[in-house]
């Protein structure tokens, strides 16, 4: 089941049934825009159950909350992936294990942070889907099926690169939906952490920390190409950057350098499509403590 479906169910049914009088909320708060309401609720602020229910009704269909739910789903995926990677015994001691431990710490913290933020805003965080990191048997990153340590390790690194580069693009794509809300800045602060992660994983894999053109890089499975499609863009703010008269000469290929210098966003649809490769089923989507 796709995350899109999960999010649809979440936003169109669960909340409505939970709080009966959405219309009433709009009447009460009629003079406030949705973004104004979001801005008034700081990230992680605990509110009473009643306030949560009221705000949840108000937030239904809110683009900022949808953006955070998508982010949370991606963080669930990353957090579980790194925990399982560390438990798998596949990672060699030293750099890889140290790096995965640090990233795991961050991704788990992001899950907690986003859940608290959503709850603070009165929304019910989506529950974690059930993940299948073999993508239906295509991979064996934890060596559960005996593909061998070496191949499993290569897949652990490849998947980490795909997840981190996806995360960077997905957060970037949601920034506009968070404008004018208290969620924008922390989302940006997560976004740049994903980029730090991506750079290090890529470097462990022998690549540069940045993305050239739409190249996924040596050793990346074809299934991950969607993570990189569109990164070849050279038009920024209506300007073809390759056509600028650079005051200092660019070393090497100008187009390659320009594509490296700008990371590109992806839409929620693309992000969910990528993540859906690793989702076998969603949870019941309900949160009993919301």
């Amino acid at each position: 089941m796709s995350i899109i479906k999960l999010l649809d169910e979440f936003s169109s049914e669960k909340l409505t049934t939970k709080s009966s009088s959405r219309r009433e909320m709009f009447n009460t708060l009629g003079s406030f825009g949705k973004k104004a309401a979001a801005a008034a609720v700081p990230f992680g602020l605990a509110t009473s159950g009643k306030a949560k229910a009221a705000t949840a009704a108000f937030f239904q269909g809110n683009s900022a909350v949808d953006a955070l739910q998508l982010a949370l789903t991606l963080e669930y995926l990353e957090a579980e992936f790194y925990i399982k990677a560390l438990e798998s015994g596949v990672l060699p001691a030293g750099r890889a294990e140290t790096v995965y431990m640090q990233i795991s710490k961050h991704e788990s913290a992001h899950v907690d942070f986003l859940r608290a933020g959503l709850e603070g805003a009165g929304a019910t965080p989506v529950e974690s889907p059930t993940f299948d990191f073999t993508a239906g048997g295509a991979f064996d990153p934890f060596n559960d099926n005996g593909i061998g340590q070496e191949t499993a390790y290569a897949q652990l690194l490849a998947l980490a690169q795909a997840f981190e580069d996806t995360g960077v693009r997905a957060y970037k794509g949601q920034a506009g939906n968070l404008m004018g809300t208290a969620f924008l800045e922390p989302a940006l602060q997560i976004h740049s952490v994903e980029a730090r992660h991506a750079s290090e994983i890529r470097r462990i894999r022998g690549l540069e920390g940045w993305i050239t053109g739409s190249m996924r890089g040596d050793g990346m499975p074809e299934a991950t190409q969607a993570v990189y499609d569109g990164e070849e863009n050279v038009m920024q703010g209506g300007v073809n950057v390759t056509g600028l008269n650079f005051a200092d000469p660019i070393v090497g290929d100008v187009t390659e350098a320009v594509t490296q210098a700008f990371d590109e966003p992806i839409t929620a649809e693309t992000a969910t499509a990528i993540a859906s490769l690793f989702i076998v089923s969603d949870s019941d989507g309900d949160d009993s403590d919301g």
Partner: protein
Amino acid sequence: MKKPLVKVDVVEASSKKSKNNSRRKFIKMSGLGIAGTSFLLYGCSEEEFDPGNPQSPSNPDPMEPTDPGDEVFDLGSGDVGILNYAYALEQLEAAFYTQVRAGGYYAGAPQEEKDLMDDLYNHEVIHRDFFKAAITAAAGEENTLPDLEFDVSSIDFDSRDSVLATAMALEDTGVGAYNGAGDRIADATYLTLAGKIVSVEARHASAIRSLINPDSADFAGDDIVNPENGLDVAYDPSEVFDIAGGFIVTEFTADNLPEPMTGA
């Protein structure tokens, strides 16, 4: 889009205090000595500075050259102000990597690290010249920050430690600056543009940190990413100027930058 108002000021002798304040904080943060002379003003609240600081001269340096006819550029207001702010930082980064390459890299630099420095140089030159083109197109040349002069004489460009430590400080500062500026941007296109650049700065910072301390967690270390909530740094412009101001020779003001929209 909104036309920014450009406020032209004559810098006053009181800017001495901000200079020393910037220098002190930069040294504290990066461990590097700064020999540059910066007259950068920001926010213009004198009370932010410590008047009791023994390093602050009690009266203006009589030898300080004054040029009453010299007008000082203000970054401007609204999105143009933020774009000029980013442009200033990109100018600094580009100038730094240009100097790294001009000096034949640092002593003993392996080819892999020269290639990496070339990439960072490319990216920052591209960012810099892109901002110049974008701001000029949006607001006119008169509202575009002029080419700044920098004093990087405090950096030992022959020393790997010195170059990498400075690169790390600049890249981390860039990340924090963009993260802290996002909530001050009104136009979604500019916000996304800032997002496209900040993640590249973060990739740089990670790579530099990984060069400084390989096989460690420093690429996203607890010193820069809060280990409790997993959030990267986000700096206000005043914090950024505290860190970077020591390198900037050309005077400009940042008196009209927009405030965060959510007070975050």
